[in-house]
């Protein structure tokens, strides 16, 4: 594993931003400051950042309802995201999408998607466009273990293989589809096995290990860019929070979350590896931590004061481009 300093610091910054953002959103939600549903990505940062490190603004990703991590990893504006969660007019979607539909097409982020399995067909389309227009770009669809059973996902695996599309299917298996266990709901237990069924290479990787994810994802992206078709990657890890905020998580084992935080924190793992290998120092990482915390605080402060959309104006706009 030889990653240069820039990639390392940038990756750490992004993972740390996701963690700080999600922890802050958790706190805000508890105080009742945020309307609607939020689904938190804390604990899963290595997956989004490890994959998106290989992508530029014209590569495309589609996400799930648990989309904040993918947004940040893909370079979306954090303040714009916070404003969106508050439902403000200056949010990245004008306050009209919210957490479950957060998107920034200028960064190639085609949206969080509130429909389980809604993403994979759209990603096939993005990959088809890249192939047709010969842009050399790729598409990545992030799907959960729940989404791995949805008909749309299975059709998309088939379609991507049959059409040899330049894309990645990244299945983030955090062990739970809402409140049911993936060991039960995924026939055969491992999503990885579906790769074989749909005639594409498949890999399983430790999602708490940024470097493992980064390496596998890099190979898959290169494969896609070379025109060799799709790859399936099953990322195995766990989420620190419930399915959504407000979920009592009684379906999890006693002490399970505490153990995750203590022993399987991808940020701690990253810090340990880079400091032990003398690639970055602890104080460099601390400095990033402090910058990130300030940025998140600032985003919240701005969001608390920002204006709401105007019902007389914004309710009816942008249904169509021209009706």
């Amino acid at each position, binding site marked *: 594993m030889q990653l240069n300093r820039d990639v390392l610091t940038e990756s750490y910054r992004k993972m740390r931003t996701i963690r700080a953002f999600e922890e802050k959103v958790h706190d805000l939600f508890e105080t009742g400051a945020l309307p609607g549903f939020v689904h938190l990505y804390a604990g899963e940062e290595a997956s989004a950042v490890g994959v998106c490190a290989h992508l530029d603004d014209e590569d*495309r990703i*589609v996400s799930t309802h648990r989309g904040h991590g993918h947004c940040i990893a893909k370079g979306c504006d954090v303040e714009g995201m916070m404003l969106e969660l508050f439902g403000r007019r200056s*949010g*990245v*979607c*004008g*306050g*009209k*999408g919210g957490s479950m*539909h957060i*998107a*920034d*097409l*200028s960064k190639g982020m*085609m*949206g969080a*998607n*509130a*429909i389980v399995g*809604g993403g*994979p*067909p*759209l*990603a*096939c*389309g*993005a990959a*088809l*466009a*890249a192939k*047709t*227009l010969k842009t050399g770009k790729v*598409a990545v669809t992030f799907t959960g273990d729940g989404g791995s059973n949805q*008909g*749309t996902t299975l*059709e*998309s695996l*088939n*379609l991507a293989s*049959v*059409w040899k599309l330049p894309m990645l299917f990244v299945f983030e298996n955090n062990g739970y589809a809402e409140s049911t266990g993936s060991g039960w709901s995924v026939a055969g237990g491992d999503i990885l096995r579906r790769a074989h069924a749909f005639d594409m290479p498949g890999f399983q990787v430790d999602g708490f290990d940024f470097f493992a994810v980064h390496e596998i994802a890099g190979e898959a992206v290169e494969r896609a860019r070379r025109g060799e078709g799709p790859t399936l990657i099953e990322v195995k890890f766990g989420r620190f929070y419930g399915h959504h905020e407000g979920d009592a998580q009684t379906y999890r084992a006693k002490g399970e979350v505490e153990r995750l935080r203590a022993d399987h924190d991808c940020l701690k793992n990253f810090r340990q590896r880079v400091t032990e290998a003398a690639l970055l120092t602890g104080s460099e990482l601390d400095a990033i931590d402090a910058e990130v915390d300030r940025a998140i605080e600032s985003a919240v402060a701005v969001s608390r004061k920002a204006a709401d959309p105007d019902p007389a104006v914004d309710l009816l*706009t*942008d*249904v*169509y*481009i*021209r*009706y």
Partner: protein
Amino acid sequence: MARILTYRDALREALRQAMEEDPTVILMGEDIAGGKGAPGEQDAWGGDMGVTKGLWGQFGDARVIDTPISEASYIGAAVGAATCGLRPVAELMFVDFMGVCFDQLLNQAAKFRYMFGGKAKTPVVIRTQYGAGYRTAAQHSQTLYSMFAHVPGLKVVVPSTAYDAKGLLISAIRDDDPVIFFEHKVLYDEARDDVPEAPYAIPFGEANFVREGDDVTIVALGRMVHFAAKAADVLAKNGVSCELIDPRTISPLDEDSILESVEKTGRLVVVDESYPRCSMAADIAGLVVDKAFHALKAPIRQVTAPHTPVPFAPVLEDAFIPSPAKIEAAVRSVMKGA
């Protein structure tokens, strides 16, 4: 020269001219070429009703794409590709199959523009076949366009003539919003018209006045426009002057033309091949009662199919479809003020 084309040929010409003009227009669907991966002829079908025949030969694999039978994935792919610089025209072979891909249209294509704060553009066209008359029975004969008109963010087009079919399909492909384009299966052969050779675009939200008249307004859609015209001919010979309006697009709907006409005639009959509940007939009747109540001299009559699935037996299917005679009877009843 009066160049008479069928509805089918007019649609194919629209597709061909749109593809010649813009390299980002691609077609996908089940058997739209036909023969992919099979040992015999390529372009074996050209679509289930032959609309796309010959286009694969001209444009090739990259732009005329056969799909597996997996609507959710390829309709979704068309939607996704539309947000990424292509202008896909995907075929949903029968609108009755909407169940397996409706999410891609209802929750994805329709909502991107709004949910993403005005920053998304989804120029996708879904062409689909609808309607009864060929004994294709319950799961291949429905109308269903009102279910799409119901959804904010989708546009819905229902051409009744070959001339309108070409001009509206060209407009649909040039439109930057998602468009669902309904083709009546019987009209492929039965509608014929003088169709200009050059490309032309008919705007959406602009009804066609098929006939002008003073006594009663008939609003009809798709194949029902032709049935209503037959009824109007008979009624004219009996001294009833009918104004026949074909909205051409139901979303956007040319409400102004319908209201102006009812203000003039005071009577309305709406003809819709759909099931009666939550149909376009109910929608238009509701609109007129809301906005032109005082002009009405008689109740509004809705001539629709019954609240049943489409039957198979020819005698039953013929009874299911609204007929010119039923339309005539409805007009007579509103002329009596009933």
